[in-house]
């Protein structure tokens, strides 16, 4: 599903460059539930943003579903994100002026799917995350956990094979975070490849693959044999 080779990311700070990622290489197979862990500032978000095509590596190569996406232009990446990727962010990233219903339907707008079908599928997606009774609510009228569930519904509506979540529980209490992780786990069991950036050892422990970063380098990459549902990429 995901293969990166010698990814390096440099940030230019004035006259100095700061290396946030240092020749990072790894693979995440299809159907995997993977965690990226590491201390604050170790480069987890930087890595996930590159995996999502939101940011670009300074050097290195990236294969997504077997195709080299290192050289894709912006609009090709937009297409890729729309069809292949679903995002869940720590800060939810919902559009405040839109209702939950419209927020969830947004990815389908960029797939040129007609309004009626979008509405239908968005309602179903909200139903799947247990929010069918909050269709008309704006993000500000929802709790943090509800907002994150809306975001997950949005990530799911286009049925993308890969879900990227950057600290999805970071802004939630333990109980609510638990529910969100359960939701993501459930999605993984239904065949989605899920990559979670997390600080929580509990969350990481529930993932079959754990990639650990330190100062921009991969210091460990383990796959446990807990489950057999995984399909090699």
């Amino acid at each position, binding site marked *: 599903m995901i293969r990166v080779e010698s990814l390096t990311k440099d940030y230019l700070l004035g006259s100095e460059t700061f290396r946030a990622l240092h020749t990072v290489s790894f693979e995440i197979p299809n159907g995997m539930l993977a965690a990226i862990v590491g201390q604050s500032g170790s480069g987890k978000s930087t890595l996930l*943003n590159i995996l*999502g*095509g*939101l*940011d670009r590596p300074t050097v290195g190569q990236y294969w997504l579903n077997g195709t080299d996406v290192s050289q894709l232009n*912006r*609009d090709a990446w*937009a*297409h890729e*994100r*729309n*069809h292949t990727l679903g*995002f869940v*962010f720590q800060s939810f*990233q*919902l*559009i405040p*002026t839109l209702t939950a219903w419209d927020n969830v339907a*947004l*990815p389908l*707008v*960029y*797939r*040129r799917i*007609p*309004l009626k079908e979008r509405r239908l599928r968005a309602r179903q997606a909200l139903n799947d995350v247990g929010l069918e009774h909050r269709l008309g609510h704006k993000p500000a009228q929802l709790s943090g956990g509800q907002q994150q569930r809306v975001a997950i519904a*949005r990530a799911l509506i286009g049925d993308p094979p890969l879900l990227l979540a950057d600290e999805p529980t970071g802004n939630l209490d333990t109980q609510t975070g638990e529910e969100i992780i359960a939701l993501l786990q459930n999605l993984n069991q239904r065949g989605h490849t899920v990559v979670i950036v997390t600080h929580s050892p509990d969350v990481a422990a529930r993932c079959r693959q754990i990639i650990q970063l330190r100062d921009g380098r991969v210091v460990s990459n383990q796959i446990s044999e807990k489950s057999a549902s995984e399909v090699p990429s």
Partner: protein
Amino acid sequence: MTWKDSVRIAMAGMWANKLRALLTMLGVIIGVSAVIVLVAIGQGASASVTSRIETLGTNVLFVTPAGGTPFSQNQIAEIQRAVPFPVTAVGIMNTPAKVATLQTTSAAQVIGTDASYIDLGALTMAAGHFLTPTEADQGQHVAVVGANLVASLFNGNSPIGQPIMVMGQQFTVVGVLNPVGQGPGASQDNALFIPMTTAQYLLGTNQLSEIMIKTATPNQADLTDNLLTNWYTNRFGANAVTIASEDQVLQTLQATRATLTELLAGTAAIALIVGGIGIMNIMLVSVTERTREIGIRQALGATREDIVLQFLLEAMAISLTGGVLGIAMGTGLVSLAPLFLKTPVSFSWFAVALAFVFSSAVGLIFGLYPAIKASGLEPIHALRYDG
């Protein structure tokens, strides 16, 4: 993204900031309504002069006296002698007055003149006859009425032979004029023609208001203009009379029209720039405010084109809504114009089309930069923006 969705998102964007959008539109609204009103006034003015020229032809001169210049009926014969070719010269005495029938009263323009007035070609008869030389010579109490007066005083019934009261005297209607229509000629629709001698008697003066001269050709009109200018200067000194030809009126009209066109272009340009800058300003604010939204849309699959279209269409929605409101306001002002403008106005679809084109162009041109700026944002930076 489909076109339908682009339009939907643009409208929603405008709607989310209704008041701000409305204030932004103000420049466009004012500019567009100014364009519509100016076009209406310009076209109205030219229509009125054109209609007069159509009825009178261009070879007509109007001689009006300056204050203190003796200006009596006798001068008509002298003018005709001073000019080496035959001309029709008609004296006019002009006064507004109330005229009445047994039933009702109306304001009218009472015009004392003689039989040759009809030879100027400005009027045609609907019924009866114009003032005859006999009626004029004998100072009979007869009147020829304009089309509007027939409607207002006689309910549209034939007034021939009916009595009518003018300045305390009873007259008999002997003729009815065809309507002339709009323009200064319209005063003839509200006019009541009586014999010159009768008018002199009623008004107690021999002083004419105007002498109208019609020549056979426009060239002769020019010549007559020069001859009479000299003749009056010799007799009464410089500037004793003003001589205006239809030709001059035409030139004035063309000059006025040119001025109006320049004014129009100026107003349109100001509307374009002021309205456009306002829209550009607000769209830049909007792009900044919605940086995160742009990042989210990009993360979910919006291409550069999608983002450009979203903001460009929003700018156009603002300017077009302003254009439509401006058209409504301009049209409203045009229909109210007769209440406080003496000059006639004429509404034109051309101005509406012009306004429409202007306002969409404004949105397009001034919305382009903010839209391109929005589409150029890096998704990662846009998502992290906290504003």
